[in-house]
């Protein structure tokens, strides 16, 4: 097992999941890189603590009266799943199909949307767009329940083209209107009552009600439409079929996948004017999009096995989103081996860092990359990761400390201590400058004449959590 193999696997696990500790990486490297990619893509994850268990102790995690418990439920899956690629993919789509609590005021339908993304996010993109168009949260969020035969509301038709599939510059205003006509009649059951409850944030008389899609043929525009140069009596599925056949769609989705899993692209509004950072990679991903019949899983299989993904040039370059930072840290520290009230507050931590799960700031979702960082959010990030990694009572931290101690000989050498700590935290790479700061810290805080104690190692781990490298993926 070479160090290069471990470092590459660590990169994969940070991007395809939320990171892995040394023990996990060692096992995965033995299995091999390609097999690990295939396993993650082709198998359902194992989540050892059931939904029943969560709901018993935290009923709102299933019924969602509150605005944040739905996100906290999802966070449990992120920290408990053995291979959280599905959660990562759902997080990816959640950032694109941004739908939020501010308008819906119903955490259950938002949670249901995440479940839909978990179920279909790795499948066929055409199917995913159909499911999205039928999703009650999306129907309310973009007002398709207010779009009627003869009186269309263009919100969904516009965002379907601009934000969810092709990007601006690839269609006309007339195409938006025609797409909107095709989606008339796509609504939710009891839409007047449901939207009123959303507007009033009403939990009365008996709590939240889930919603479901309803097709109203009487309200569907049956007249001929012309969309992207094709003419026919189109319904919503026909529009999505035509969208998925477009090269612009292939490029748009490829660029999103590249930006989320490989390296930051410019913000989406700049895409019509700025070429991709790696046009060749986008071209290759676009080809897989068509060759696989719009299959997201096959696009990701290609992406994770590509040279452009494996290149050291892209390692540790992305700033972790708050959810990635929180989930990744909690997977290392194993603070929540069973449902706990405190877990709710870790989700709030992500919110304080700028990412309120299921409540993105606008239809554009969050701006990723260095925009996650400002003077306030950086303090939140450092405080969170340092306090979790530096708490020696956390089960995962205890294991890390014991592994570090058993890997070192007395008297303790500060350099070896730092290297062992970085290794245990998931083959964390640092600059020489960061490493020397950590070594200086260890030198000044360790008494080499004494046997190293848990508190001293925990203090070093706390310091690592504050390092810029820990904040990156």
């Amino acid at each position, binding site marked *: 097992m070479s160090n290069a193999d471990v470092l590459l696997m660590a990169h994969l696990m940070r991007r395809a999941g939320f990171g892995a500790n040394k023990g996990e990486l060692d096992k995965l490297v033995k299995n091999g890189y390609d097999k690990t990619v295939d396993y993650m893509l082709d198998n359902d994850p194992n989540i050892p603590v059931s939904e029943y268990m969560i709901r018993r*102790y935290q*009923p709102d995690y299933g019924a969602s*009266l509150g605005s944040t418990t739905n996100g906290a439920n999802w966070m449990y899956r992120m920290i408990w799943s053995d291979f959280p690629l599905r959660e990562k993919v759902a997080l990816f789509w959640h950032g694109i199909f941004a739908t939020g609590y501010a308008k819906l005021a119903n955490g259950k339908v938002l949670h249901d949307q995440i479940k839909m993304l978990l179920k279909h996010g790795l499948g066929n993109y055409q199917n995913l767009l159909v499911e999205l168009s039928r999703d009650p949260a999306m129907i309310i969020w973009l007002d398709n329940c207010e779009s009627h035969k003869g009186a269309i509301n263009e919100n969904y038709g516009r965002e379907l083209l601009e934000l969810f599939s092709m990007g601006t510059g690839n269609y006309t205003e007339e195409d938006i209107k025609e797409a909107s006509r095709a989606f008339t009649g796509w609504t939710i059951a009891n839409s007047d009552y449901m939207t009123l409850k959303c507007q009033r944030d009403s939990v*009365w008389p*008996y*709590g939240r*009600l*889930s919603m479901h899609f309803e097709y109203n043929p009487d309200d569907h525009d049956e007249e001929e439409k012309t969309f992207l140069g094709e003419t026919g009596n189109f319904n919503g599925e026909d529009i999505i079929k035509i969208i998925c056949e477009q090269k612009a769609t292939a490029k748009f989705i490829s660029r999103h996948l590249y930006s989320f899993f490989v390296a930051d692209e410019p913000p989406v509004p700049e895409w019509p004017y700025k070429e991709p950072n790696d046009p060749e990679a986008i071209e290759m991903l676009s080809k897989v999009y068509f060759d696989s019949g719009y299959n997201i899983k096959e696009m990701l299989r290609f992406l994770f096995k590509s040279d452009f993904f494996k290149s050291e040039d892209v390692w540790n370059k992305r700033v972790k989103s708050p959810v990635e930072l929180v989930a990744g840290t909690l997977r290392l520290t194993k603070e929540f081996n069973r449902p706990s009230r405190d877990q709710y507050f870790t989700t709030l931590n992500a919110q304080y860092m700028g990412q309120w799960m299921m409540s993105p700031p606008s239809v554009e979702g969050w701006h990723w990359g260095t925009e996650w960082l400002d003077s306030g959010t950086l303090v939140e990030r450092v405080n969170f990761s340092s306090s979790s990694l530096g708490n020696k009572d956390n089960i995962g931290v205890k294991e890390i400390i014991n592994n570090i101690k058993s890997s070192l000989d007395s008297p303790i050498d500060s350099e070896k201590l730092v290297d062992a700590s970085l290794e245990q935290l998931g083959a964390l790479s640092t600059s020489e400058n960061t490493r020397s700061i950590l070594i200086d810290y260890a030198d000044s805080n360790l008494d080499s004449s004494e046997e190293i104690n848990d508190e001293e190692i925990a203090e070093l781990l706390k310091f690592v959590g504050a390092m810029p490298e820990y904040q990156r993926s």
Partner: protein
Amino acid sequence: MTTISSKIKYKNTMGLAAMQGRGFYYPMDLAFDSSEKIYVLGRGHDGDPRGCRIVVMDMNEEYYGTFGSFGNENGQFIWPSCIAVNSKDNLFISDEATNKITVMSKEGNYISSFGEFGSGNGQFDGPNGLAFDHDDNLYVVDHRNGRVQVFDEDGKFIRKFGKPGDLSGELNLPWGITIDSKNNLYIADWGNHRIQEFSNDGDFIKSIGSYGKKDTDLIHPSDVAVDLKGNVFVTDWGNHRFKAFNQNGDLIYSTRGEATLSKWAHDFLNTNIEEKEARSKSKLVFELPGFDKDPHEESSHVEKYFWSPTSITFYKGEIIIVDSNRHRLPVYLVS
């Protein structure tokens, strides 16, 4: 819905969702005092602990006020789970987060508390169901320790029985408990999907149910009640049903729920006319379009269905169920 016995009939529903004041916010359990007042224990949720309180009412939905709140001080709760009333009308409340049993007067004054985290005598890892026997001894379901502990009225440990496991007489994260007229115990063995009956000494007598979605099955039952004839009433929490079995363990009743609007719910709608009108034009019962046949999902869509019922009480010929996720108390008549 399957109804086998005509001797059990839906009567009415009490309650309303409300973060504070008159209504419930994730009610978990209830208990009656000697004057037939009902004390409904609420949990609230992690993002809004205002529901963490005790609401006092009666079977006519007369509201008498609330007491108790979220917190770590005496008379406060973090994750309150179950409530019971002794012969002196004192309230005993279990808290599975603080691992304490709190004793309060029926007026809401703090009296005392006992318990701490651990697995020794008098210690708890998640105290849940509470019941008093005929001698006013308190039985506490110590759920993560897989056992029942017995205390006198002063909170002094007397004895214990049960151990974690799935064999007869063993317990897997048990929840609710009740004591019948013969002083026998019935425990909702949540993790083993069954109800177990024990003698007062803790000897295993019999078991009802096993995992499954059929009417005769159970998934994670939360609570159990018994009438004078030995009929066993169960909140089948994971199947989101109320079920009844005769003393031989044969199913006699099973329902998905048929809750209607309570007095308090009518009051709400009568003062919120716009919602009342929109609601009246809605079709709240419909063909269920899939949901992978997951009863939790189905219940989230159909308001009249039970949604995570956590507690069941037999009281003077009536069954009162705590329908937790719907913040209400459906009532059934037993003849």
